[in-house]
């Protein structure tokens, strides 16, 4: 961040308030390139869209708490907390230590993100950028993604998402992530879709094709 032109106090403020690593990574190059502020915000929003989905799944667990607490829980729940928690707890059971588990995971996650971040900001000149230590963050997200793979449908969805994200990379505002989510959800619903979604999809395509051919034949007839 400091390498990107932010002063040390601003960089500290950013890491302490914007508790979202991937959004920071996406926003910083734009900020140093003097992109308009709304572009920075739009990009961060797209990168953070996955948390909107996560929040839907946190809902049943947090609903019995007052609004301020719910929002605080949401704010502190990162990728890692989400994956670990959801793997362990399938449905809400008050009083069974779920919230304690959440608090512990969140505290560890927060500290292990903030301490190295602050260290990095203060030690910026001690570690050369070409070592590529930033790749550790990518590897952490890779591990999280792998831990969400559970069957063939999810594996296929992930493959499609990766390919779509690369193919659509040139889109502005990191919209390639939105494209990838849409593609993966479609594929996922098609392959797991209650047994006959694949057949339904094929039927729809065939119907469209026939109509197209019918139109082509009709058009040819008129021309003649």
């Amino acid at each position: 961040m400091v390498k990107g032109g932010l002063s040390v106090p601003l960089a500290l403020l950013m890491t302490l308030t914007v508790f979202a690593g991937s959004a920071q990574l996406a926003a910083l190059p734009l900020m140093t390139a003097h992109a308009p502020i709304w572009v920075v915000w739009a990009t961060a929003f797209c990168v953070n869209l996955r948390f909107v989905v996560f929040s839907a799944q946190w809902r049943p667990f947090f609903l019995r708490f007052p609004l301020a607490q719910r929002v605080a829980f949401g704010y502190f729940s990162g990728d890692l907390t989400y994956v670990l928690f959801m793997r362990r707890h399938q449905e809400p059971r008050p009083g069974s230590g779920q919230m304690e588990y959440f608090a512990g995971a969140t505290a560890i996650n927060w500290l292990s993100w903030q301490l190295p971040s602050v260290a990095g900001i203060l030690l910026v000149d001690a570690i050369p950028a070409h070592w590529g230590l930033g790749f550790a963050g990518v590897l952490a997200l890779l591990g999280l993604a792998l831990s969400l793979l559970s069957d063939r449908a999810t594996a296929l969805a992930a493959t499609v998402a990766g390919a779509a994200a690369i193919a659509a990379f040139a889109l502005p505002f990191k919209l390639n992530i939105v494209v990838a989510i849409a593609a993966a959800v479609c594929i996922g619903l098609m392959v797991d879709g209650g047994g006959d979604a694949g057949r339904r999809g094929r039927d729809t395509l065939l119907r469209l094709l026939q109509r197209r051919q019918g139109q082509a034949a009709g058009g040819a007839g008129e021309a003649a």
Partner: protein
Amino acid sequence: MSAAESLITIAGLAAITIVTRSFFLFSGRELVLPERVKRGLRYAPLAALTAVVAPEILMTQGHLIDTWKDARIYAALAAAAWFFWRRGILGTILSGMAVLLALKFCLGW
């Protein structure tokens, strides 16, 4: 960006973090998601993570990499192998970084 602009940008980013993270937590009323939406949501987090990670591993400056001499590929493979062997995130990061740094410093990739 001036300090004031940076400050506004950062405040906005913090607000975005709160809004996205708590999106479905603001309303206290019952919210029933259709079955199809629920099934679709199963794939969205995985897709988002993959979409963030894949370009970071396989692209350089907006282009698909066209060489095998890229340390990131082998670092990611090593990390994935570790994950399937041991299922730990920390080991995944460390094994991947070990391969990355070894290839960077020994072979200059």
